[in-house]
């Protein structure tokens, strides 16, 4: 008996379908892009499942999500293509009502109408293995539909080929292809039909009626924002959606090379009302036709305080990479366009958390989303227009607002050996997080957007202000965004410039302290190690001094890189013409000097000069002879 056969007998819950991938894992992400993972689908799916539901889930899905779903259903069948994944899930889901099928989905032979609910959040292409015969997307959709009982549900994730993430990614389609992009038949379309209309038509042609439709961001498989179709369609320019999308893309795309600044583009996508068509993916909750026979569906346990969840306008989470700090919340927009936020319980997402000096209280997030525009956006707009006056006004308003929160307290520098306390203006812990990207400003009032963060550190007003300004400096310079200052500007230099507008003198000591504060807060949030903290501190201290745009990899966006090159070329040409002008001026002066020297020489060589010298010679002789006496008579001379 071979090794695999031995394991096969041991893993009696695993059925091998054929074409299982033996040297592959979707769950660990070692072979591809990792499984579908998002806490946002939990409250949505919970409404479709109950203890009598028979469910099927296909495609790579995060084990924690499978575990959660398996607790809510009567039985759960899982189809994966990787043999190591099947084995890992078998161990992880021990004791749950689960069967695992491993191999190419085309060999999955359960009879039609076997399931109340079929879940394919990851979409269709990754249900097939390297050994699978290529099946068109549409055929697979029909196969999935067939597996659903009449009146049952199919939840399908669809990747948008023209999603913003695909458009922004600078290298996914050109870098050497990864192991998961094995060659497929060029005649058969494995991906979803092109465009939302085509996808909708495909669903309809498969006899599926769409009950709910969400657009997902910033990636189809790593979703941190879901917005309902009814909110997006036929709507333009929503500031809150723009902010949410912008921060989702900022967190989701990380440090990947991009074609242009993702935050800006995500914002513009929402502002232009193209959030639906440019979404990286869509999630459809559909019903197989025959609505009268729909099985009673309802959650067994409340997912919300009032148990009535429905399908909210938007769902959002943050810190997907650092789930300890994650909060899940739902948002709804009223008729006037005001947004209300409330918390959603997924695991411990509603409980307060603390680590080191950092705290997070989810309950502070609930309530109305502040009115106005993001302060950072107002700063960037002013920068884009070279409007120094507006910048001054904004910095002053912000500094005043921050100053108003502060009160005079005895303060001890936590990063100094000297423990003597002196009176300083100290701001409350929550205000430390009121940096530009987290403050809403409606022209009169400023309000913190995400007020759930707090710190136990006592932070003086100047340090908090310096940190906020420097963060903005990084944002402008690292993004390669337009600003009114010379391109050789460093973040620290920009901080000094901005602070001077409110009369605060930023010293190197203040910059150093703001870097330490950043390490305390950011480091803790990213769950950094001591070495990680040191690295962050080092980066802040050294990069803060360096002009950005000249460093390798900065700025990240190709468009911004081109703009930077253009700006540098202009400045170079300007510098060149300045040099030429200086050169010309110097030349002019030299010509003049030469002319005057010649005149002087002419005078020296003239007869009249010789006569004059002869006449004055005795006086000069006498003067030279008496010079020591004259010197002695002059006080202070030597």
């Amino acid at each position: 008996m071979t090794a695999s056969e031995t394991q096969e007998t041991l893993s009696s819950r695993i059925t091998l379908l054929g074409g299982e991938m033996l040297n592959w894992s979707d769950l660990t992400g070692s072979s591809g892009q990792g499984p579908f993972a998002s806490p946002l689908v939990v409250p949505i799916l919970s409404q479709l499942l109950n203890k009598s539901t028979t469910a099927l889930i296909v495609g790579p899905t995060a084990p924690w999500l499978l575990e959660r779903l398996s607790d809510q259903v009567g039985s759960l069948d899982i189809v994966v293509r990787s043999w190591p994944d099947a084995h890992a899930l078998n161990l992880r889901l021990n004791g749950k009502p689960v069967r695992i099928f491993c191999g190419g989905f085309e060999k999955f032979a359960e009879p039609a109408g076997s399931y109340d609910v079929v879940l394919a959040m990851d979409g269709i292409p990754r249900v097939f293995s390297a050994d699978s015969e290529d099946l068109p997307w549409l055929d697979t959709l029909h196969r999935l539909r067939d597996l659903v009982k009449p009146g049952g549900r199919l939840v399908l994730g669809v990747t948008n080929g023209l999603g913003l993430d695909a458009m922004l990614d600078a290298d996914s389609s050109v870098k050497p292809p990864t192991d998961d992009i094995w060659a497929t038949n060029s005649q058969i379309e494995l991906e979803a039909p092109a465009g939302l209309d085509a996808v909708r038509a495909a669903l309809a042609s498969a006899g599926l009626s769409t009950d709910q439709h969400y657009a997902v961001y910033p990636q189809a498989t790593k979703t941190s924002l879901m917005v309902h179709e009814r909110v997006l369609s036929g709507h333009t320019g929503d500031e809150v959606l723009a902010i949410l999308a912008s921060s989702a893309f900022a967190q989701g795309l990380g440090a990947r090379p991009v074609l242009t600044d993702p935050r800006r583009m995500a914002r513009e996508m929402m502002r232009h009302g193209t959030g639906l068509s440019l979404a990286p993916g869509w999630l459809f909750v559909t019903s197989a036709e025959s609505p009268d026979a729909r099985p009673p569906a309802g959650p067994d346990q409340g997912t919300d305080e009032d148990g009535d969840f429905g399908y909210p306008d938007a769902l959002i989470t943050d810190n997907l990479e650092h789930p300890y700090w994650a909060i899940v919340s739902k948002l709804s927009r009223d008729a006037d366009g005001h947004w209300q936020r409330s918390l959603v319980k997924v695991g411990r997402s509603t409980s307060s958390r603390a680590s080191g000096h950092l705290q997070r209280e989810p309950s502070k997030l609930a309530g109305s989303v502040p009115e106005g525009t993001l302060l950072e956006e107002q700063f960037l707009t002013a920068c884009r227009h070279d409007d120094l006056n507006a910048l001054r006004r904004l910095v002053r308003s912000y500094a005043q607002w921050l100053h108003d929160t502060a009160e005079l307290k005895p303060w001890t520098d936590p990063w100094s050996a000297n423990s003597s306390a002196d009176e300083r203006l100290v701001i409350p812990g929550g205000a430390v997080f009121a940096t530009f990207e987290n403050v809403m400003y409606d022209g009169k009032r400023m309000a913190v957007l995400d007020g759930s963060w707090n710190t136990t550190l006592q932070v003086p007003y100047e340090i908090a202000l310096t940190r906020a300004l420097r963060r903005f400096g990084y944002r402008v310079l690292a993004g390669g965004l337009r600003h009114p200052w010379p391109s050789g500007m460093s973040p620290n230099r920009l901080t000094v410039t901005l602070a001077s507008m409110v009369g605060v003198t930023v010293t190197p000591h203040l910059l150093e302290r703001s870097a330490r504060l950043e390490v305390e807060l950011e480091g803790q949030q990213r769950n950094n190690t001591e070495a990680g903290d040191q690295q962050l501190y080092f980066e802040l201290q050294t990069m803060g001094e360096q002009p950005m745009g000249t460093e390798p990899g900065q700025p990240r966006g190709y468009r911004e890189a081109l703009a930077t090159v253009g700006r540098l070329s202009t400045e170079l040409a300007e510098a060149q013409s300045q040099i030429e002008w200086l050169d010309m001026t110097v030349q002019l002066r030299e010509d003049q000097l030469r002319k005057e020297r010649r005149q002087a020489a002419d005078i020296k060589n003239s007869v009249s000069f010789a006569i004059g010298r002869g006449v004055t010679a005795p006086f000069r002789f006498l003067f030279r002879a008496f010079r020591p006496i004259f010197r002695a008579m002059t006080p202070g001379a030597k």
Partner: protein
Amino acid sequence: MHHANHFYGHAHIMADYAGLEYPPRIWGYLQHGWNILDGFAHGTEFVDGMPLFVWSDGVRRRGWSMGRRNYYVIGSPWSYLLKLHPELATPAPDAAGTIHYPFHGWEGQHVLGDHGRIVRSINEHEEGPVTVCLYWNEYRNADIRHVYENAGFRVITHGYRGLYWRKTDENFLLKQLTEVRRHKRVASNRLSSAVLYGASVGLQPGVYGDPMLLQNEHPAFGGVARIKRMWPEMNLPFVPMDVAKAFTDTELGNDYLASPEEIRELFRWKLN
């Protein structure tokens, strides 16, 4: 380049097809047998960037998922051999009976199993005269040979596949083709290259009996069980001819055959 390129006279067939008298070294690795993983024996040491010439697209995909690149699907040398020998395009006039290939090992990996059980399974399924073709190392073993001879079977071997470019029987596959043409059925206890070869020229294939185990077979290949899960339709004593045709066309890469010019180009060969 790699010595396995010369196994079974593959390099010689390709040279013949490309219009060369003797095979120069091939710039790359040539798949030397039907394969259910990346096209090559486990532990083959690959030089980065060298082309990998494989029979079928499935091999290429699996290899790609394992991190290998530079694949060229060109079909099997067997398919080229068929083009070279149109005189063997039809069965011999006296074709009859079954040619059976007990699953073979090689010098370094012996198969473990009971040849007596194979004889019993052959008697169970075959009616006409039976030829048993043993691999060279088993053929040399008189004990194994006698098991089959005593059962009344004709026992033959196609020759030695060669090792490190030495003693390769250049006409190995031609001998096999000639022999295959003299039968109506091809059978084995394991779905293997020989069954594919036979089936590809219209012999009715059959797979039955103790599949035997290859000594130290690497688990990455998944064993016989994996083959049976992948192609249940081929692991039958009597495989329908249309099923067999579709399977051999795919696995021998019959749609992927290259022209002599292209082979020369790919292998970096020059006409003398």
